[in-house]
């Protein structure tokens, strides 16, 4: 039990998690079931650009792509959101107006989180004032590994408050947490502190999202739901670039949390390259042949 927090440490057996994840990944998804999964995955993507090189021009291109994924294929869903740095939020929000695609912003000294709380809160408020509808924050991994859980918890609470109406996704950066016990612990801590979503990674650290880590987080979400009745969302991010991988994540989601989570309100993919591979697969299912990658726009 963590001092002054009613969170129990839940032990995780890493070998068992890996076996279960591998078993779920071996489900064979074919034909109509595959197309349905691909369309669902597409609708769950947070199209992401998080680079020091980002400019309004680049962000506008990405936003256009968000609602025009591949106009040759009619009836495609839109992606869920476009995710950018705080300085690009205003541009993105304007470009996405009327499309139904949400504007998400990273904040809290992304990706390291190595800044004073005051700065993190200022960063968050700025993003929200610029028009961010969703905020992706990072936890202080250093403090977490020091065992200063209370401070990590309080930071999340403070950022959640600074978000106001914006939805809060809490990035655990599981690649820096070292063990699955820590992943579970951080998931529980973030949910109790008010996270609307928990998210694996910044995409700047390897390993980013993996199936075993995602399974541990989905099971934490399930237990939190059964204890509190509150449905928290999940966002694996980084390293998911193939359509086939996205289907494996959806299988895991379906068999761990079931129907209520199979939508973009409770599940997202943080990815920049995934969309095009899914589009290529959907087109292949319709035409029977693969197109060259050059038939899909690179925004």
């Amino acid at each position: 039990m963590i001092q002054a927090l009613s969170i129990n440490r839940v032990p995780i057996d890493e070998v068992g998690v890996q076996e279960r994840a591998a078993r779920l990944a071996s489900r064979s998804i074919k034909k109509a079931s595959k197309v349905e999964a691909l369309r669902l995955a597409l609708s769950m993507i947070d199209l992401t650009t998080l680079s020091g090189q980002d400019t309004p021009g680049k962000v506008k291109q990405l936003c256009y792509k968000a609602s025009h994924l591949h106009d040759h294929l009619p009836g495609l869903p839109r992606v869920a959101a476009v995710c950018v740095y705080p300085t690009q939020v205003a541009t993105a929000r304007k470009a996405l107006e009327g499309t139904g695609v949400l504007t998400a912003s990273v904040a809290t000294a992304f990706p390291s989180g190595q800044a004073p709380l005051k700065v993190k809160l200022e960063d968050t408020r700025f993003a929200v004032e610029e028009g961010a509808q969703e905020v992706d924050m990072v936890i202080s991994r250093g403090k977490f590994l020091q065992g200063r859980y209370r401070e990590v918890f309080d930071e999340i609470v403070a950022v959640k408050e600074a978000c106001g109406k914006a939805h809060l996704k809490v990035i655990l950066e599981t690649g820096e947490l070292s063990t699955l016990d820590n992943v579970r612990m951080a998931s529980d801590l973030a949910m109790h502190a008010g996270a609307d979503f928990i998210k694996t990674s910044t995409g700047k650290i390897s390993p980013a999202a993996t199936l075993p880590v995602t399974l541990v987080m989905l099971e934490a979400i399930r237990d939190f739901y059964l204890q509190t009745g509150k449905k928290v969302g999940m966002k694996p991010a980084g390293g998911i670039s193939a359509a086939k991988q996205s289907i494996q994540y959806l299988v895991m989601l379906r068999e761990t949390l079931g129907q209520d989570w199979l939508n973009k309100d409770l599940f997202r993919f943080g990815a920049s390259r995934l969309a095009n591979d899914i589009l290529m697969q959907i087109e292949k299912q319709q035409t029977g042949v693969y197109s060259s990658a050059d038939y899909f726009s690179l925004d």
Partner: protein
Amino acid sequence: MTEHSSPLTFDTSWQYAPAPESADHISLKSRYGLFIDGKFRKPRSGKYFDTINPANEEKLAEVAEADAADVEAAVKAARRAYDKYWSKLKPAERGKYVYRIARMIQEKAREFAVIESLDGGKPIRESKSVDIPLAAAHFFYYAGWADKLAYAFPGRDPRPLGVAGQIIPWNFPLLMAAWKLAPALACGNTVLLKPAETTPLTALKLAELIQEADLPPGVVNILTGAGETGAAIVRQPGIDKIAFTGSTEVGKIIQKAVAGTHKKLTLELGGKAANIVLEDAPIDQAVEGIVNGIYFNQGHVCCAGSRLFVQEGVAGEVIQKLKTRMQTLIVGDPLDKNTDIGAINSRTQLETIESYLKIGQEEGASMYQPAYPLPEKGYWCRPTLFTDTAQSHRITQEEIFGPVLAVQTFRTLEEVVAKANNTPYGLSAGVWTDKGAKIFGLTQQLRAGVIWANTYNKFDPTAPFGGYKESGFGREGGLHGLEAYLQL
């Protein structure tokens, strides 16, 4: 864990489409004879019986029924092969033959897997990832021992026994054949093997493979038939060793029949394993291990974790999670790649299981089964959970050999050790805890041949397998598995 919310819904709008494994590539004859002295022969009696697909009750092939005369002919062939070739062959050459069988099983793995699932009802996922690779692994492992037996037993003089009669069950047909054949051949014995009457096909395909591998005729003889054929093998005076895997009831009959003869005997019989979950266990992984422990291969596993003991502090959570997990098990077509639980092996076995479901309810236990639909034809049983059970219930005492789990709760480690050991069986057990010291403490006290910690139903050719008490005697696998086929 207290539950505030409505349960999770797994009847989702997005469903998996059927993903059947192709069966076009397999070759099956419509009728199989007896494999004696390197050739397929007609049975003396002229009698054949059908082997059917338990998932749709359709006939797959006819197989010969061997009688005492056929058994005698096979024993003569095995003796001749032993005297003439096999006992005179250099051990390294013997090893080469065994390696060749291993490699050829790997080459034909896909065909073996499909036939195993067709004939026995087990999910193709399991035939492909467990049965066939493990069968090949056993031949590989024992092939390596063939010319190293003197090093396995230093200071002794290991010699083969002669002719071995081996009788195997229907739950892992090819794998059990491998467990029996590989050590016997590597140690220099010749063999007479009888597969179970409901699952003879992969053994007969193995006979074809052995022909193709050019083993000297008579080294391996494979005779199909039911209990009478098995009894004829046990009675045959020309046999030096009987190895049997199957029910405790039949094992006792065999032990009586062999008493007072020169025949050596090993028995691998039933089980009613305790799978023990302590309150500090990793619960989600334990739930997965419970599912794997009892629903693997439809529960047709002698070492199945059929008695679950949960410490009271986590009993509510474990049972709730187990029920949730059971809802996502996929029961149906064994050849579908997504199937988790296939068909029950035979109508007889289904009737046995169903009688226990009735007994459990009459005894006052609470039964839970997920509600999904079952195919119309074939033999099916939903995964089943009994709570509110006691040591005095028949469903916690007797081996059901089906997907039926009896759950009991306990308070202290002393209590669970006493209850876990309070059974005529002693084949296997499982322990789930985050504390290494508790694992060692419990494994010291549990009287079972195999104990898994934080996992279940893991098999490896290097690990000895076998039981205490009415679960039998002798070990298969590992160095210990050699002893059963050697004079030392």
